[in-house]
């Protein structure tokens, strides 16, 4: 086999499983065994790759990964310079993945790799994103109740109703996920964000297991506030990222209407009971005019920003799925 052909074989993979791990030394061997079992049950077992991203662990996770990698060439272990957080680690794995289908999951063994074949089969039915739904969650109520509320809110705000936004076990077509903007803490909102690229989304009930090793890396209360802000951000982006000028234009029209009403009131006072134009009232009307102008300009700059983005969401939608 010549070099080019072998390079082609190496760079193509049927399925990439992306697993960010942070201080999961004890979970790694079992996780690998279960992943390998899931792959071996699949017709293209040889063309799988398991991309483990070590997000700056300090407990020997890296050594465990290297050990697993030596045993199986399908394993790729990537170590980050420091602990960057779940979303960047996930983004790193997705960027590195070479598969046409990409599966993401947590490294804490709470997701069950045995569910992967079913997720892949659902992708084959013509979906771009299949989200896991932990319908029997093995977590404390203090985590499941806020999460239920959050799922409802996200679904209502973004128009993508899913039962379980927080489940990391998801399967994607590479084309859909690689185009989805992924930054800050937004990995939770990948399904909602991917609608911007025109992806077809569905969900599938998956198994959820209690934590076997280590402890959860989340602190619920501190997180809630930021998740709420993220939720608003995503909702706003989805609402207006397609047509910012229309979004801001509508706002500006509302302001103009309110201003016109104020103007009438001031005029009515001038010709009628008051007999002069109150300076404060006139000031309010001027502020309204100013705000309308500001909103139109901001909408216009937002349009410019989208139009000049190369490969940004504006283009993604225009080009459709591929």
């Amino acid at each position, binding site marked *: 086999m010549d070099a080019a052909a072998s390079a082609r074989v190496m760079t193509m993979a049927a399925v990439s499983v992306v697993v960010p791990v942070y201080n999961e030394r004890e979970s790694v061997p079992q996780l690998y065994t279960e992943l390998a079992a899931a792959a071996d049950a699949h017709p293209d077992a040889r063309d799988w*790759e398991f991309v483990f991203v070590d997000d700056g662990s300090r407990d020997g996770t890296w050594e465990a990964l290297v050990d697993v990698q030596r045993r199986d060439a399908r394993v790729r272990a990537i*170590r980050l*310079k420091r602990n*960057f957080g779940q979303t960047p680690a996930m983004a790193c794995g997705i960027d*590195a993945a070479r598969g046409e289908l990409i599966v993401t999951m947590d490294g804490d063994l709470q997701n069950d790799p045995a569910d992967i074949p079913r997720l892949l089969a659902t992708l084959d039915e013509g979906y771009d994103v299949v989200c896991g739904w932990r319908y029997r969650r093995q977590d404390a109520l203090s985590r499941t109740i806020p999460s239920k509320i959050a799922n409802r809110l996200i679904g209502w705000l973004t128009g993508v109703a899913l039962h379980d936004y927080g489940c990391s076990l998801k399967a994607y077509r590479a084309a859909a996920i690689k185009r989805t903007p992924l*930054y800050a803490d937004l990995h939770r909102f990948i399904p909602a964000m991917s609608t911007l690229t025109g992806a077809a989304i569905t969900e599938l009930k998956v198994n959820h297991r209690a934590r076997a090793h280590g402890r959860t890396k989340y602190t619920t209360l501190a997180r809630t506030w930021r998740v709420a802000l993220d939720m608003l951000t995503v909702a706003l982006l989805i609402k207006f990222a397609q047509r910012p000028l229309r979004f801001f234009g509508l706002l500006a029209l509302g302001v103009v209407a309110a201003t016109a009403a104020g103007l009438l009131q001031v005029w009515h006072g001038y010709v009628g009971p008051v007999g002069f134009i*109150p300076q404060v009232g006139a000031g309010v009307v001027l502020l309204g005019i100013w705000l309308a102008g500001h909103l139109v300009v901001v909408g216009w700059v937002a349009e410019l920003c*989208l139009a000049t983005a190369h490969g940004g969401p504006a283009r993604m939608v225009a080009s459709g799925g591929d």
Partner: protein
Amino acid sequence: MEPTTSVIMLFGSRYEDLESICLSLRRILTPLAPGYEVILVDEATGPQTQIRMRALRQQFPEVRVIRLRRHMGESTALAAGVQAARGEILITLDPYLHVALEDVPKLLEPLRNGTDLVCAWRFPRREGVLSRAASAAFNGVARWLTQVPVHDLNCRTRVMRREVFEALPLYGDLHRFIPIFASRRGYRWCEVQVPQQPGKRELGAFDMRSYVGRFLDLVTLAFLSRFLKRPLHFFGLMGMASFAAGAAMFAYLAYLKVALGAGIGHRPLLLLSVLLIVVGIQIASIGLLGELMIFTHARDLKDYVIEEERGGDDP
């Protein structure tokens, strides 16, 4: 042979004695990094320097000169120098020669055991009290803002792997903050104490304008390090607070007008409440604009730095 080490110097009219600098570099660097190169970035100085440069290049073949069309700020000039540099290890020199060239090997030392960036920390200082106090305050505020233990951001004598410089978003005067950005991205870095040389006094060290400039740089740093990825979190909250205050006042006035029938058209509170509402919407909309910029470029902004990778390419 491709050079492995590149020394980058910016010069306007500050270096008088380039020949002796080049000679010292030869003496110091030849044993450590044979085949180094010197990149001089000429920030649009007059025609005499071009003649001097030509003479210098004849005497020192390791020197290369990059000429900028106009003065564009130190970070841009540095970036131009790095772009032209061929070495894997970059040495940038302080334009005021506060660090003796003899101390450069001390900075190269830590690179051998995996450090990515080494910064000179001028200590002890040989400056006036005022200048020392200003510097301590500047570094203190930067430490407080970023939680990165930096001690001498204003000393530009640094040694780094090329990768570090290329990973950082530098423009304007942000090269000062190289250690902060590098440590945020996970690069290993350290400071090495070197005694300050008498050198030349920093131009405008007691200049009010340079203090204001540095202060504004710190503000930029605060934004870049805390809110770069989440503009809407910051501006959105500020906007919401202003909007809520304005709306509360407005509701109070509406109550007076509708329930009690009092006139409100002459009350300054009306103007204030509407002003707060307008300002709130403005701030939030600018935040949304910022968020949109991050959003559209998110795929290009890599949030992570890879330390090492096993598997994948090797069969």
